[in-house]
């Protein structure tokens, strides 16, 4: 071993000071899973209170704190960092790079996350309680009428934003500069492409979110009136700024999920991805459109009719590139040689349920119909179909798919399949009935409801407990694999898997591609 071929440091300092993309990826993944459990616990409290009509377990004010923290923790703590973790592990290995382009910044962008969330979670114990204004924190409920803990919330958002911006700069720098010779843009695996586009979205919109919370801070502490009509401001301005960030944000969450599925489905279909180029263009089209559709979250604020029409048409257009993606995945499976290991099951689950979420999304884009859907459980059902069955299923698929490469050990396939089926059934029992109660008139973010919604809510709660419990099985399976899983030494691991990461030894050594690999003339994907 030469000077630069050292292994990881020992003890805690390995993790505190590491600049290794694999270590940082691992920390992101564990951190996001911890947040997933925390956010899930909040969800269990919500569903337990909603099990029956009437107030049983918590007070309405605390219920609002739970819905707020559930949303914030899941979006910013669980889903986003989990995909950053995946990017850290996989992008260098997929493009033939030895590490991320900016390893020290990589360390920092992870290590400011735990204090950020500690600050957010600490608000639960403050006087007046945690933020209780929803994860969308509309002013003036989040400014003039908020508990004092809102200031801690604002700084927590700043910290998470800085972390995300640094993470995405790193990803952009890595992809632009560290590709192995011959790895042209149109040869990059789709996961790399989706993250490349996502990183640009993040750099573009996280500062907008930072601006929104800074204006809140000014309104609360320094006497400005950005969001107060009494001082010449406008509460709706907040919503425009928030959703200018918020809509690209939902694609930030879902695009890397598309990337994962585009790796997994070809592998288990033993067939190249259908329409690689159109996948890249569709991803870019979705990203660009995401900047001009934000006000479809605000159809009921009283925009002029011309504005409503513009945002309705622009939003409907998103169905075209999204449809292209779904058709491509299905065509990839068509006449393939399919097998159904756990990663494939989760990817097919993604494909089916995300498509349902896409359909309800199209329904929601129709402005006049949205007057009836807006802020009801129909919306809650819609975004859980795309966030949970979309992003989380895809992430779960990714963990099962690459875990053997990371650890050199195979997970328990039977337990993985059981985890999938319990998740799939639990998820649908939870969220499908929410379409019904939403259409029947149940508003979202209510701690109690009228009697006609009782049966479906009870069903929803039972489904949620089942889905929640199935995640414990996932945790157990992953730990058992790391500790005592059956050893795998085959580089390929999955016979249909394609890409540079599968040319590396299993488990992937601490340092990889110190010498750039040779890229074959034929594209690996497509």
């Amino acid at each position, binding site marked *: 071993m030469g000077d630069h071929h050292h292994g990881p440091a020992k003890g805690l300092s390995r993790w505190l000071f590491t600049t290794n993309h694999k270590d940082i990826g691992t920390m992101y993944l564990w951190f996001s899973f911890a947040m997933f459990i925390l956010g899930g616990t909040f969800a269990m409290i919500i569903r337990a209170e909603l099990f029956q*009509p*009437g107030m049983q377990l918590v007070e*309405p*004010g605390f219920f609002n704190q739970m819905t707020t923290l559930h949303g914030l923790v899941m979006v910013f703590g669980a889903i986003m960092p989990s995909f950053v973790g995946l990017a850290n592990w996989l992008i260098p290995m997929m493009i033939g790079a030895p590490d991320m382009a900016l390893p020290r910044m990589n360390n920092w962008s992870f290590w400011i996350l735990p204090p950020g969330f500690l600050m957010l979670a600490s608000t639960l114990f403050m006087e007046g309680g945690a933020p*209780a*204004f929803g994860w969308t924190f*509309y002013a*003036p*409920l989040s400014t003039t*009428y908020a508990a004092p803990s809102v200031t801690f919330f604002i700084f927590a958002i700043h910290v998470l934003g800085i972390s995300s911006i640094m993470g995405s700069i790193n990803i952009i720098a890595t992809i632009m500069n560290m590709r192995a010779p011959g790895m042209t843009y149109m040869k990059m695996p789709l996961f790399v492409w989706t993250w490349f586009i996502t990183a640009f979205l993040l750099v573009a919109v996280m500062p907008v979110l930072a601006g929104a919370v800074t204006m809140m801070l000014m309104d609360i502490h320094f006497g400005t009136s950005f969001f107060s*009509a009494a001082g010449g401001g*406008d*509460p709706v301005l907040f919503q425009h700024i928030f959703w200018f960030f918020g809509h690209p944000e939902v694609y930030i969450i879902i695009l890397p999920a598309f990337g994962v599925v585009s790796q997994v489905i070809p592998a288990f279909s*033993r*067939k190249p991805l*259908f*329409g*690689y*180029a*159109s996948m890249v263009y569709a991803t870019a089209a979705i990203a660009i459109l995401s900047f001009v559709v934000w006000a479809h979250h605000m159809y*009921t*604020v009283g925009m002029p*009719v011309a504005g409503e*029409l513009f945002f*309705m048409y622009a939003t*409907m257009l998103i169905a*075209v590139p999204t449809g*292209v993606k779904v*058709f491509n995945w*299905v065509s990839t*499976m*068509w*006449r*393939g*040689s*399919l*097998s159904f290991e756990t990663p494939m099951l989760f990817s*097919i689950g993604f*494909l*089916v349920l995300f*498509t349902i979420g896409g359909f309800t999304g*199209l*329904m929601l884009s129709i402005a*006049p*119909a949205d*007057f*009836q859907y807006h*802020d009801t459980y129909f919306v809650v059902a819609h975004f859980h179909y795309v966030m949970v069955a979309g992003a989380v299923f895809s992430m779960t698929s990714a963990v099962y798919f690459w875990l053997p490469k990371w650890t050199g050990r195979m997970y328990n396939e039977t337990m993985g399949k059981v985890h999938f089926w319990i998740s799939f059934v639990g998820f649908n029992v939870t969220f499908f009935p929410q379409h*019904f109660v939403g*259409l*029947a*008139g149940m*508003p*979202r*973010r*209510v701690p109690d409801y009228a*009697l*006609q919604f009782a049966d*479906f809510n009870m069903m929803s709660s039972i489904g949620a407990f089942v889905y929640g419990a199935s995640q414990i099985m996932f945790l157990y399976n992953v730990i058992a694999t790391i500790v005592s899983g059956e050893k795998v030494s085959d580089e390929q691991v999955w016979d249909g898997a394609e890409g540079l990461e599968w040319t590396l030894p299993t488990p992937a050594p601490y340092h990889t591609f110190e010498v750039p690999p040779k890229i074959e003339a034929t594209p690996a994907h*497509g």
Partner: protein
Amino acid sequence: MSIKKSLVTAGAALSALPIVALAQNQVNMSPGVTKVGAEIYDLHMLIMIICIVIGVGVFGVMLYSIVYHRKSKGFVASQFHESTKVEIAWTVVPFLILIGMAVPATSTLLEVYDNDDAELDILVTGHQWKWRYEYLNAEGENVSFFSNLATPQEEIYNSEAKGEHYLLEVDEPLVIPVDTKVRFLITANDVIHSWWVPEIAVKRDAIPGFINEAWSKVDQEGIYRGQCTELCGSYHGFMPIVVHAVSQDEFQGWMSAKRADKDAQIAASSVDLSLDALMTEGESVYKTQCLACHGGQGEGGVGKAISGSSIAMGDLGLHLDVGIKGVAGTAMQAFGEQLTDVEMAAVITYQRNAFGNNTGDVVQPSDVAQHKQG
């Protein structure tokens, strides 16, 4: 035979269950009682059916693959990976379908936005956590009132059986005439609320400092219920909307009765009441207006404790100020407009004598009126 018979019985019982359950478990949007509502419903059904047809197609192809193109059946994978023709087709066809959806959506939207020529204007103001209605252009003086949740705390906290319209009942509903274009001018006093009654097809955000417009022309007499649909704080789930749509004659009668009530209230505020009468009235006002924040025993909660409070046991002028003008920057609202002078006198008297605050003070409606004038 007996096994077969019992199976049949069990089967009948089981098949009856979902029917019983479905009667109260609405699964779809209601077309409601307005022309616009019916158009929105048709639009909703159209888009949903198109989505279902596309879904059946896509999932059908996928299912066929899953069943027949299996490695375990020895199916050998083809290696095709693009087809420009197919890819152009599935870009262009969805685009055309979208145009087909956009046409009816646009015409319905334009109708929703046509606020002109309203025959009756009602100002709807969202407050934490109640609605205020004011009839603007009816002949004679404006009529206004607050509409509070009528469901008792005992039902919410499960010590009493829940009524049929649990959480969807108010002390004073909004009354509108049928076959009349009613325009709602919607705003808010504190945070953003949203006024939604599904069956009359109106949902519009109530934004402090701005006035939004929406309209409805109800075809059928009846009682229509809705709720606030924008998170507006702790009791967001407890500010329902109830609309009584009545015949135009009945509406005129109701309007005159409201005006007579208002005159009676003015007259009542000059009459002195006994401590007992004030306490009884005060208790009922306390329960609807104060209890949610200040607790059933005046122990406090979102709001400060009333029991033993320096305000409720101290200077009467300050106590009246807090009740009438509220406390800026807190959840304590100005109740001066929300309560009649009699109600205000009663609840102040109640707070000064209940929960162990036995000050013995009696506040008369005339004291409140006088205090309001300064």
